[in-house]
């Protein structure tokens, strides 16, 4: 496909988003609060919540920027002092008195394909048919009827929001003296009057319906982090039709796609991630990559933002032009796309019980956590479990307190007869921890079952309408929970060091090690360096070491998958960390791998930072010795490089690394190309580098917005030399 350049409009939108702090989301919360207080007589919780959603969507102030080709974002207006007082009272007195609604929200992609194809009118017809079948004298059906009424109310709210935007566009069109802009606004008004009420007909209509509905799910339900699923599939009919009809050019299509990506970025708070996926096979095994796949890939170069996070689903039939372009973008220092192993993930989905038609339609749901699109109610990264602290618990080394000190507690076992006995004790502790996490997460899901409910969302997640059940009450087809385990590399490295120096060489005893860890190696730097430099480390293609990673990951997978969620779904483990490697590391005492107290844990599923001595090939080999298939909770392997002076060889090398990783059954790999000098300069002079994006534990973020500790950590971590 012919490549087009980013337009001036895209550059302006981009500048504006980068310059702006996160838009406040006070207005929807205030609207929700007012509705909630006014509907206390409503007997049905779901109806009451739907009314609140409708009130928000009807009351949101439309926000239209001068360059917007797609409309819908949070209002930038500041609340009046009266409104602020009202909101404050809600937050401090009224909201805390309500029943708890815990557990994770969003982190999923709705059924955009149905939204576009059937429109809200189609959904309403469907609901009417379902309601006709109910016998309201039966308690179950009475509940279903309330759910359907709630859905209808929520859909009315969504229609009202589009109507308000249409009216606002008409008003602005009448006021502007810019003839070209007036025409754009009139077209936007026409679109917002038509979709999503009716099925989309044009590409522009489809994009607007997708964008504003996604925004409405966030604003209207006080949620964040909805993903866009597989837009290069569900948008393709509209794209092809418009292109053939001459309504669209490659350039105008690209600009609209760039706008979609920027709009998504504009209302996502800093530090969080949203995204979508492109490429991959369909249920028949055919690779679906198409012109839209290339447009979305190109949007990475045009928008150059931390979000949306774009995942490329790679398989042996991915067109070489797409793989090459992806590697080129990464070698230029862009942090997207992340590359996902399409066949491996599909196999994992099949093993999780999905039919082929769904197994090929997964999505990374913010960072790398996998969920099926269109039918998910999955709590991802729930919770994060610190694997190093568990080892410390076993050894009797407490977490760091506010002063950064670790207390020595009782060891779980006074002495371990052998290394194997120690590992078995660790596994027992791990099993207890997983069990406790299941109880905690299922309790959270229970609060949602009794007190939650998201009727608007339920309209777009299969099979809530068919079952007549809200998403919080089990309406979704897939009700998984995905705990994520942080610090795998540190755990393996620590165990290897313990094996060598406590059990094989008798160089130190457990008491000495405990004391050294609690004292943060104070006065025994030589001991720390011995543990750090001399014990072999995960990530260096050392079969003895990597075998421990195999053992730990397979143990975790089998333990986690024993349990069911409150709604009856499966538990799937993950090994990624978002920013938790830094946060959990900050509270973790020095560890037997030679890591100092408070330092970050390993940032994903590859080697810990600075521990890969043999370069990226060895890291890739180590990281693919264990089975990624069951780890639907997500795996992130980071490759870090200094910027190359010789780009040709670099792109070719990168491609060889990525393809080998994927062919060996790797789930996800991400690349960060940056030089230390740039990072240091950005730390000194953040203003000049506000668009510098770095890859962290499975997601991307703006470097200058990170904590000083995180910045230091990124500067310190390994860079592959000699490029």
């Amino acid at each position, binding site marked *: 496909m012919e490549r087009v350049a980013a337009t001036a409009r895209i550059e302006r939108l981009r500048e504006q988003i980068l310059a702006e702090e996160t838009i406040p989301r006070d207005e929807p919360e205030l609207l929700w609060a007012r509705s909630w207080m006014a509907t206390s007589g409503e007997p049905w919780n779901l109806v009451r919540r739907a009314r609140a959603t409708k009130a928000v969507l009807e009351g949101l102030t439309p926000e239209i920027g001068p360059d917007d080709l797609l409309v819908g974002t949070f209002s930038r207006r500041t609340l009046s002092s009266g409104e602020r007082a009202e909101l404050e009272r809600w937050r401090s007195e009224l909201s805390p008195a309500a029943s708890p609604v815990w557990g994770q929200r969003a982190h999923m992609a709705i059924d955009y394909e149905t939204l576009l194809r059937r429109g809200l009118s189609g959904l309403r017809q469907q609901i009417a048919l379902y309601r006709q079948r109910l016998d309201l004298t039966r308690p179950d059906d009475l509940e279903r009827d309330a759910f359907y009424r709630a859905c209808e109310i929520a859909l009315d709210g969504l229609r009202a929001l589009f109507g308000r935007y249409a009216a606002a566009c008409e008003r602005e069109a009448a006021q502007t003296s810019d003839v070209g802009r007036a025409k754009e606004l009139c077209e936007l008004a026409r679109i917002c009057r038509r979709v999503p009420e009716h099925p989309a007909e044009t590409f522009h209509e489809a994009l607007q319906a997708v964008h504003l509905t996604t925004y409405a799910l966030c604003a209207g339900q006080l949620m964040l982090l909805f993903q866009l699923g597989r837009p290069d599939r569900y948008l393709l009919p509209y794209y092809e039709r418009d292109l053939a009809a001459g309504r669209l050019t490659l350039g105008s299509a690209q600009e609209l796609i760039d706008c979609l990506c920027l709009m998504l970025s504009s209302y996502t708070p800093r530090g969080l991630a949203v995204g979508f996926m492109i490429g991959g096979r369909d249920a028949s095994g055919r690779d679906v990559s198409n012109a839209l796949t290339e447009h979305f890939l190109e949007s990475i170069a045009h928008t150059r933002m931390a979000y949306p996070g774009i995942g490329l689903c790679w398989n042996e039939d991915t067109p070489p032009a797409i793989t090459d372009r992806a590697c080129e973008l990464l070698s230029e220092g862009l942090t997207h796309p992340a590359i996902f192993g399409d066949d491996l993930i599909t196999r994992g989905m099949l093993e999780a019980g999905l039919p082929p038609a769904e197994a090929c339609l997964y999505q990374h749901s913010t960072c790398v956590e996998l969920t099926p699109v269109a039918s998910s109610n999955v709590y991802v990264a729930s919770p994060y479990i610190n694997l190093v602290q568990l080892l410390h618990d076993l050894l009797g080394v407490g977490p760091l307190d506010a002063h950064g000190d670790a207390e020595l507690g009782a060891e779980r076992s006074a002495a371990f007869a052998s290394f194997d006995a120690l590992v078995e004790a660790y596994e027992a502790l791990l099993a207890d921890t997983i069990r406790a996490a299941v109880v905690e997460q299922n309790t959270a899901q229970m609060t949602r079952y009794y007190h939650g409910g998201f009727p608007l969302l339920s309209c777009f997640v299969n099979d809530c309408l068919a079952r007549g059940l809200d998403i919080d009450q089990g309406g979704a087809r897939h009700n998984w929970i995905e705990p994520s385990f942080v610090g795998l590399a540190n755990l393996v490295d620590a165990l290897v060091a313990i094996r060598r120096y406590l059990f094989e060489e008798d160089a130190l005893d457990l008491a000495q090690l405990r004391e050294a860890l609690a004292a943060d190696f104070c006065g025994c*730097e030589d001991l720390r360096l011995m543990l750090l430099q*001399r014990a072999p480390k995960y990530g260096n293609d050392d079969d003895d070491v990597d075998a421990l990673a195999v053992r730990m990951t397979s143990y975790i997978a089998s333990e986690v998958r024993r349990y069911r969620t409150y709604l009856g779904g499966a538990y799937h483990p993950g090994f990624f960390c978002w920013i938790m490697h830094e946060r959990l590391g900050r509270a973790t005492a020095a560890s037997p791998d030679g890591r100092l107290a408070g330092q970050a844990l390993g940032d994903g599923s590859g080697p810990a930072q600075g521990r890969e001595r043999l370069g990226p*090939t060895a890291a890739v*080999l180590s990281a693919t010795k264990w089975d990624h298939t069951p780890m639907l909770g997500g795996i992130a392997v980071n490759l870090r490089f200094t910027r190359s002076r010789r780009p040709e060889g670099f792109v070719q*090398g990168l491609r060889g690394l990525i393809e*080998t990783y994927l062919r060996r059954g790797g789930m996800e790999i991400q690349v960060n190309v940056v030089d230390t000098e740039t990072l240091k300069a950005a730390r000194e002079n953040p203003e000049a580098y506000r668009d510098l994006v770095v890859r962290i534990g499975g997601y991307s973020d703006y470097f200058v917005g990170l904590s000083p500790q995180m910045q230091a950590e990124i500067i310190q971590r390994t860079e592959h030399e000699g*490029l």
Partner: protein
Amino acid sequence: MQGYVTNIQRYSIHDGPGIRTTVFLKGCNLRCFWCHNPETLAPKPELQLFPERCIGCGACLERCPYGAHARVNGDRVFRRELCQACGACAETCYAEALVLVGDRMTPDEVVAQALRDRPFYETSNGGVTLSGGEPLLQLAFSRAILEGVRAQGVHTAIETNACWPWERLASLAELVDLWMVDIKTMDSDLHRQVTGAPNEQILANLHQLADSGAPVIVRTPIVPGINDAAEDVAAIAAFVAGLPSLVYYELLPFHPMATGKYRSLGLDYRAAKLKRPSPETMATLAQVAAGSGVEARTGG
């Protein structure tokens, strides 16, 4: 059989096609004064000392059987003349202030390590590169490594200075898929001055290699004041243009980053004050070379 290996570098992407593993052997017959890899020159193990990493634990003082490490007036000193490069101190130096460079290895050990990255060679059409030092200095060792790699069907490349009787090169001809040879300068007197040997043999070998049809990449390290003038490169390019099996001609800029390595070995670096040629100089020289009709590349 055992040989001396400096380092086995995985994910080498600029020493031949694809992703490669480069085996750096130890020992060289030339003494190019700008050499970027001084740790590969001596054909035996050596101790490197990086004082900035020392944490003062004193383990080396106790471990050295020859008294090479000592404390004099409270300062730690290293008397290289007493060092037998036994490695006892490096073994206990967890801070890696003392590093023994040069491993004695069997060809099988080298081959086993070099083949660890085979999955990457298959994906990227890469392979194994033998480099140095000078691989032909340990001819039998090099030969055994190449045989082992070749037996697995993996692509082989060799970086040699070709400053040897033709028979030495010829003896490896069937085991090498790609040759990489430097021409430092066409001026033989200057060549002798800056490398310790004249260049006639190298040039004759290059002709023989090319005539035999063996793929050859010719490279020139661009060293300020030695060969960075247009006429220097033009003369080399004219010669290179006459090699029928040339893959391409590559210009590599001198860089002063080896200074720390010389210091760690107790060696004097005569090129320490030289500057890296600018990207503009490199581009101009590449254009000059291209003028002779060869495909000229610049590397980093």
